[in-house]
């Protein structure tokens, strides 16, 4: 029997069988998701060409499924790790109201992570294993989060820079994604990320009224700006797997997204008279960096080794792969409770 017909057939029995079969099924049918995606790449491309979104695994080919899982993992891991990363400096909030808004942001991030992992579960991924059993170094979030945020100033600069990067990337996914359930979910995420980056901007303005505040902000910009520039990945001419096959996982290229980020981050810093290692070049109508790039980074001291000059992207990939100082601790924070309860139950 053709797969979709089988799915319709099995739905007729689904109404009687309670909830226990609900794991890893889609809304549209009761087809078990452990099965391989049935379409060929050609059929997927045909569907996309007809402006029909991909709604579930029944509309995917194996290559589409792998691709969407990869990009969802990066997004989900990034949202999830931002919770422990933001929680440390949230505790340094100057008073109750800002502490509350920092916690609200963390709650938003957990919601965003939940949405992406839920979608992956519908694609047959064992999410418990993915979150709680995975080696910390295998998490797929940007290196920037591995460098500790310790002060309130660093938290609000993360809102201004990192949440802006998240917003730029997810707006691109929202505009171009062919995976319907994610595209629709991003209405919420985009709205909340806008709040996060405004939170950062408002605090930047407020803190900029004092000399001490200005000095701390400049110090944070000095290490956080280039980490966010790196966030967007390899430059277009160095990018290795471009086998996206027109599946529409992403609309714009890494370099285009980096430009979009700089086009609001640089004017923000300049409007408050901070120095950033980038400026708008009138001749090429692009933002250009004023320092060699990429650079070696001293994570312990949160310092770019500008004097050592430009390094290779291979060296950067090596640093990303080795992960940074907070990776282990943040993942432990996320996994600890699950592991403790599990061993408690096993011992009982």
């Amino acid at each position, binding site marked *: 029997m053709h797969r*979709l017909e089988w799915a*319709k057939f*099995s*739905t007729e*029995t*689904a*109404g*009687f*069988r*309670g*909830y*226990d*079969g*609900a*794991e*890893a*099924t889609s*809304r*549209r*049918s*009761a087809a*078990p998701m*452990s099965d391989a995606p049935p379409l060929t790449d050609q059929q997927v491309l045909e569907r996309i060409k007809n402006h*029909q*979104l991909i*709604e579930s695994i029944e509309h995917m080919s194996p290559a589409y499924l792998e691709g969407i899982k990869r990009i969802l993992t990066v997004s989900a891991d990034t949202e999830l790790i931002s919770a422990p990363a933001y929680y440390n400096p949230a505790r340094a909030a100057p008073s109750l109201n800002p502490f509350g808004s920092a916690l609200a942001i963390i*709650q938003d991030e957990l*919601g965003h992570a*939940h*949405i992406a992992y*839920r979608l992956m*579960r*519908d694609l*047959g991924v*064992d*999410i*418990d*294993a993915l979150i709680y059993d995975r080696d910390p170094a295998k998490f797929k979030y940007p290196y920037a989060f591995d460098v500790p945020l310790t002060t309130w100033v660093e938290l609000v600069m993360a809102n201004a820079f990192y949440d802006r990067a998240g917003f730029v990337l997810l707006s691109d996914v929202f505009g171009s994604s062919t995976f*319907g359930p994610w595209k*629709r*979910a991003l*209405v*919420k995420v985009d*709205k*909340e990320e806008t709040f996060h980056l405004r939170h950062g901007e408002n605090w930047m303005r407020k803190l900029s009224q004092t000399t001490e505040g200005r000095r701390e902000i400049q110090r944070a910009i000095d290490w956080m700006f280039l980490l966010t520039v790196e966030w967007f990945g390899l430059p277009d001419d160095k990018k290795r797997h471009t086998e996206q096959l027109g599946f529409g996982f992403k609309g714009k290229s890494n370099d285009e997204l980096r430009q979009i980020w700089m086009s609001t981050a640089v004017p923000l810093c300049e409007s408050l008279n901070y120095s950033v290692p980038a400026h708008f070049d009138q001749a090429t109508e692009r933002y250009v960096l004023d320092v060699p790039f990429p650079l070696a980074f001293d994570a312990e001291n949160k310092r770019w080794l500008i004097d050592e000059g430009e390094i290779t992207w291979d060296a950067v990939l090596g640093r990303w792969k080795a992960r940074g100082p907070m990776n282990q601790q943040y993942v432990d924070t996320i996994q600890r409770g*699950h592991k403790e*309860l*599990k061993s408690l*139950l096993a011992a009982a």
Partner: protein
Amino acid sequence: MNTSPAPTAKQQSSEAGGWIEDRKLWEVYARRKYDEPLYQVGTVAADDPDLGRVYARTIFNEFPWIEMVLIPRDTIIPVIEA
């Protein structure tokens, strides 16, 4: 009557790991205005409907909804599939 299909190997292994993670799936529908229909805003996993309510409220808090409901996913019968 139990017409459940046999659990897959993956389901069995995660069940053996415990019941920490909720397994029942719910579609979350909501609307913002009286003159608009309910629409799907997301999904939650919750073994208990009351917990499902809490999860839906806290995760999908992006708008001041005037109505929100949970629908057990496996009671949905497709009529026209997208």
